[in-house]
């Protein structure tokens, strides 16, 4: 068997493994896997409305993935992205509440977007400062800040921003349709959302490929110490990566409030796990901006399609993300296997020094 066939077989094996495990889980829950596939597909692409829902989920995932390409390529694990989305939504809501009666809607929307950018950036920079000047791993800093942002929303929604007379967690008063992004006629997705997400991804892709900034970020990600010794202002670059990623996440938060098919208000769990989903997307895409496009669409389709499965078969709503997780884990494991086999082949040709050490973190 030649190398390419073997590589493709391994890749297929990864996906096959994920499908097999998913099927086993569905069987354990008493759902026929074939029926589940039909429901999933139908839920995702059955009607134009379903497709609109998939695209609506795709946009925030794309924006976050674009941001995460920057942090991930500089070696950072921006797990705080969920909180950054939430803070984007919080700042957007705050700004819109402030200006909705004073300014014309388009201007209010733009100010809302700027506020969202600021909110996401602030939260990301906070995690960045903790990491760079306090030695607190961005994983813990970001995660802690996620919980803080989540509780802030619950506080706002039940306290100062609650609907008059009620203190429920269902969210703030929805904004009027004048503050919704305009949708395509007859298709509840806004061209503005789609355009912003695609432009963000293209810009990040170009930045990583052909600019000084991107190359330096990647150099830091490959070897922070050498980059520092070669005179790259490491801290400034890492903070910039955090800030840009936070800004894009904040923009996603803005879209989750004002988007054509959004709920048009602030509510707990508004980030819907899109940030974590984007982490999985970027892991699978392996830093390739082009691959982000189909993978994030596929994942958005699973997320939305699985809702039909959940509804029809009374399953827990986590079933979609469980399938996504199985897929990513299987692919990662087979990728590792592939690389090991490759090394073995190379090793047979040329023996390696015995105890060379390498950090496992990429």
């Amino acid at each position: 068997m030649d190398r390419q066939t073997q590589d493709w077989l391994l890749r297929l094996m990864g996906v096959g493994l994920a499908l097999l495990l998913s099927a086993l889980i569905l069987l354990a829950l008493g759902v026929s896997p074939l029926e589940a596939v039909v429901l999933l597909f139908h839920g995702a692409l059955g009607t134009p409305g379903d497709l609109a829902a998939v695209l609506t989920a795709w946009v925030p995932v794309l924006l976050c993935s674009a941001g995460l390409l920057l942090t991930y390529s500089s070696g950072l694990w921006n797990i705080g992205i969920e909180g950054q989305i939430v803070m984007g939504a919080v700042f957007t809501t705050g700004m819109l509440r402030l200006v909705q009666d004073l300014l014309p809607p388009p201007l209010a929307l733009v100010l809302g977007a700027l506020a969202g950018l600021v909110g996401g950036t602030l939260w990301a920079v906070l995690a960045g400062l903790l990491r760079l000047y306090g030695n607190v791993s961005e994983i813990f800093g970001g995660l802690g800040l996620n919980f803080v942002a989540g509780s802030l929303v619950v506080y706002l929604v039940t306290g100062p921003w609650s609907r008059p007379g009620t203190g429920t967690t269902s969210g703030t008063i929805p904004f009027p349709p004048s503050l919704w992004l305009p949708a395509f006629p007859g298709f509840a997705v806004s061209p503005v959302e789609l355009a912003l997400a695609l432009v963000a991804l293209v810009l990040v892709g170009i930045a990583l490929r052909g600019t000084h900034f991107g190359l330096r970020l990647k150099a830091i990600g490959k070897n922070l110490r050498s980059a520092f010794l070669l005179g790259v202002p490491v801290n400034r670059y890492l903070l910039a990566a955090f800030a840009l990623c936070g800004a894009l996440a904040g923009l996603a938060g803005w879209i989750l409030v004002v988007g054509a098919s959004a709920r048009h208000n602030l509510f707990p769990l508004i980030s819907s796990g899109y940030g974590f989903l984007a982490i999985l997307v970027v892991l699978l895409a392996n830093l390739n901006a082009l691959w982000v496009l189909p993978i994030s669409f596929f994942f958005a389709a699973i997320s939305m399609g699985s809702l039909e499965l959940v509804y029809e078969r009374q399953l827990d709503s986590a079933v979609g993300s469980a399938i996504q997780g199985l897929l990513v884990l299987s692919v990662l494991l087979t990728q590792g296997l592939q690389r090991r086999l490759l090394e073995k082949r190379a090793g047979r040709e040329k023996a390696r020094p015995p105890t060379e050490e390498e950090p496992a973190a990429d």
Partner: protein
Amino acid sequence: MDLTIFLASVLAAAPPVLFAVLGETITEKAGVINLSLDGTILLTAMAGFAVALHTGSVVPGILAAMLVGALVAGIVALASLTLRLPQVATGFVLTLLTRDLAYVLGNPYVRVPGPQVPHTPVPLLAEWPVVGKILFDQDPLVYLSLVAIVLVWVFMFKTRPGLMLQGLGEQPAAAYARGAEVVRMRYLYTLLGGALVGLGGAAFSLLVAPGWARQKFEGIGWIALAIVIFGNWHPLRAALGAYLFVALQTLATTLQSAMPDVPTQVFPTLPFPLMILTLLLVTVSGADWMNRLLARLPPGLRRVLSRTIQMLQTVPPAGLGKVPRRE
């Protein structure tokens, strides 16, 4: 509140966090990070409860939870040690995956009443005033958690394999040169650590907060991971951290009812800013701005402060997260 009752309730509520922290300490001491704790605790809590419910007994439930914990840890070990994938990547994916699996597979068990670990005072000793009430008027998992702290400490510092374990995390290449089977031992300690985390999960669903429901134990795994850092990878300091955390949690519950004006969302969130601040405190020395700040203080205060900070500083095992290459 009566101090005796307070201490007894802290001890009673500590086993889940304590087992998880001890397990992860062992795993990381061997050089492997099992980042999946937050999900693993959920999945093992669910599995333990489900098996206990079906068998009608807590012992099979506890064993099943430990098995599941070891299984997840096995994937971490396979990915990291055999396939040499970045530990954070697989760990994070597993965090999400185990959480989702817990919710999906645990759906039929939500809010179903089930068996619990029974309260078992030790005869005679429980009658002992104060100390007996705190230590011996508890249930088996609490006694086991106390024994586990001592056992882990003795193993790590007083036995030969324990000293080898420290070498695995500090200088894997040297341990290998001395004849330790590095990869096999790392596998072993990762599995063992995972089983202890599973025991922690079972202690949640069968003892501290009996039953299974969505989002019941979410977030606690991250706290446990942070406590391992606070504990400086030392079982006693880690155990102290776990008890401190549980004590604060118990206090917060009391405060919450005493302070009705403070919004109720504040209290469940408190652990997380506290986690960040604590990590900051134990990792901050060496930062330039800290030294500059200290230099401005009067000498007496400076000495006290810098000594306190030095004492609190933590240093991870040198080989943590690294996989030695060997052909």
